């Protein structure tokens, strides 16, 4: 043990040579990370949108829905994967089911809050002018709820990007793969390098996605920025 620790002291902290030798691997893991995230957030959004519509139409359903998704949210991801393993095995499905279940609470809350936040006079004038319920939802309520909804998507995305790393334990992981491997080699600088690479890339991806979504929101809602009365 002391020998191992002594080795750690003597090696350089970060091994750039490792990075350059493994660029292909890093790229593969990037693709894996992005794909897992994309699928999880998209599927999560579709499910959340459906459940939100139910909750909006039948207000009494909102409490049970948030209760159920809240439980899924509170259960640690590792535990959730542990439950899914005997059922769906070491597959992408296991990973995705786990990841998707963490997005539901956030997305449902934000979709419902966004729609609820539409001013009632806007809704009344829309109905009064002859909008059908369906068109009103698609043309008036959803677009006006967009800022809050996108805020939810941002949080969900960043959260999922973090959780994807945990899927390293069931054979995936994206950048988490490097973190896990780095842990196994903790006594060497290659180990620490991989931990750092995995971490930095994860954070970079999360920040980029967050900023990208923020920019998308700004582009989609030009009306939200104009404020000065003429």
């Amino acid at each position: 043990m002391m020998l191992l620790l002594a080795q750690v002291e003597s090696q350089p902290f970060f091994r750039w040579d490792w990075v350059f030798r493994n660029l292909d691997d890093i790229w593969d893991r990037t693709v894996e990370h992005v794909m897992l995230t994309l699928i999880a957030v998209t599927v999560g959004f579709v499910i959340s949108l459906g459940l939100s519509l139910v909750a909006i139409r039948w207000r009494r359903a909102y409490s049970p829905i948030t209760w159920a998704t809240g439980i899924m949210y509170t259960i640690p991801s590792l535990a959730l994967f542990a439950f899914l393993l005997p059922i769906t095995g070491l597959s992408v499905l296991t990973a995705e089911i786990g990841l998707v279940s963490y997005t539901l609470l956030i997305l449902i809350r934000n979709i419902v809050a966004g729609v609820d936040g539409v001013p009632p006079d806007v809704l009344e004038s829309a109905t009064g002018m002859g909008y059908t319920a369906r068109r009103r939802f698609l043309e008036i309520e959803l677009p006006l709820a967009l800022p809050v909804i996108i805020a939810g998507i941002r949080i969900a995305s960043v959260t999922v990007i973090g959780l994807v790393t945990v899927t390293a334990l069931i054979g995936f992981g994206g950048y988490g793969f490097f973190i896990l491997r780095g842990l196994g080699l903790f006594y060497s600088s290659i180990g620490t390098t991989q931990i750092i690479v995995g971490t930095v890339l994860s954070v970079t991806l999360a920040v980029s996605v967050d900023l990208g979504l923020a920019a998308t929101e700004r582009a989609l809602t030009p009306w939200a920025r104009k404020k000065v009365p003429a």
Partner: protein
Amino acid sequence: MIEFLGEVAAWFTDPANWTGINGIPNRMWEHIQMSAAATTAAALVAIPPAVYLAHHRRGGVLAVASVNVARAVPSFAIVAVFLPISIRLGLGLGFWPTFLALFFLAVPPIFTNSYTGVAGVDPALTEAARGMGMTDGQVLRRIEVPVASPLIIAALRVATVQVIATATLAALVAWGGLGRYIIDGFATQDSVEVFAGGLLVAALALATDAVFSIVERRITPRGTGTAADDVTRVAA
């Protein structure tokens, strides 16, 4: 499936799993102890400055930024990063990297939500209090903190659950806790142990959440609104 659940039940009824270092009581206790220690330490460090800054209406940007930045760092990464750090600091494996990681994990949400709680106290209340002649300190102690206390408890609730969840990963840095069952189970391909571990961790997390919720509701001063539900980081 039924067969599998039967095996899991058998695991739970096997007395061997209830004794010794790797027994459920020990692992559960380890897990609870560590989570409590890390969260308490984080609370002691994060709550006072949060309350102080919020009272003086300073540092709002820091409050918002800290959670947003922290959310971008995966919990798994935080645990992993502290291993080499701990070693270089001469603190070794097991306890220290786990404790430090969980500590730094818990600080941002506790800080931000405590700040938001105090800053969000209805200004009409503080104005009225000052108008009645209360000193700054009195306003803080008698108005702001009590009114914000449900939100501070909520902050602790969210942070503790995250800590409990992340602690399950700490088995990877040679620590114990309930994550031991899951990680060891993965290594030995013992899906029963994995599942059982999952149940224990989930139970602990849900129970903790429930207890905190009850406390939240109890200490909500009568007449004030609902507690906050700010979720910042997901359980790892």
